[in-house]
């Protein structure tokens, strides 16, 4: 019973902070502050992760095996300081993909009901 692999869908929906972190780690290993900067940059400053939410989310993600800590290395911007880098695991990626798929379905449904400005409801013609 305990050997069964957890189903990614069983963790959905994810919190916005967790999905933000997963997307930031999608193609590279980053340290905590770089993740926060990446989220801010990607959303043009609309979303900012505060340290409490950020590290609490990382803690949950580590516990669930969605991210792992990569080896410590010096921050190129800060000569002597060593940073902890985080990496998305394969399972974490599957959970993120399941969440994105869920959101995609939601966005499609919203679009079809005219919730998205400048978008025609589906079936109303090309």
């Amino acid at each position: 019973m305990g050997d069964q692999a957890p189903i990614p869908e069983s963790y959905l929906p994810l919190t916005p902070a967790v999905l933000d972190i997963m997307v930031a780690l999608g193609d590279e290993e980053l340290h905590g502050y770089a993740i926060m900067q990446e989220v801010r940059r990607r959303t043009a400053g609309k979303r900012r992760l505060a340290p409490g939410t950020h590290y609490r989310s990382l803690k949950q993600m580590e516990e669930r095996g969605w991210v792992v800590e990569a080896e410590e290395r010096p921050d190129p911007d800060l000569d002597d300081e060593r940073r902890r880098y985080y990496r998305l695991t394969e399972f974490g990626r599957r959970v993120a993909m399941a969440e994105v798929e869920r959101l995609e379905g939601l966005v499609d449904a919203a679009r079809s009901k005219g919730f998205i400005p400048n978008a025609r409801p589906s079936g109303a013609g090309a």
Partner: protein
Amino acid sequence: MLLLLSASAWLYSALLVLYPKAFWRRYGAQMRRDFRELSREGLREGGATELVRVWAATLSDLVLTALMERGIMPARNAQKSVDPRVAASAMVVAVVLAAVAVTGASLWQTPIYEASAQVWVDQEQGDQQTNLSGTVEGLQTIILTMIHAIDSRPVADEAIQRLGLQM
């Protein structure tokens, strides 16, 4: 500015004790470092106003997440559906804690008093003695010193009285 950043970082470090011990042992150093970076960046980009915004966002987030980590507040999606009364209480707690930390820090620090004294020595050259007050420069220096002494007298008196020094 550097002092403001240091004080800000110190206060944030002190408030991290609100988290359970295991949490701040694991993430405390990273959170401190990131907060320092956030403050530095905020100060650079928007001055003191932006630093206040960083503080406001960080402080409310710190209290709410600390309550969640301690199991006092339901965790799942808590940030999206926080009861405004709970959020307001959290802010009040945060402000009180910050005030207590600042007051504690100011009481804990021992004041340092500094004093200096100038000793004027006449120079004797052979059998001829040069009187410092006899030259224009010497006279000016003595007058300036007297003015400083008069100006600083009330401060000195207060320090002597508070420390109970025998003069």
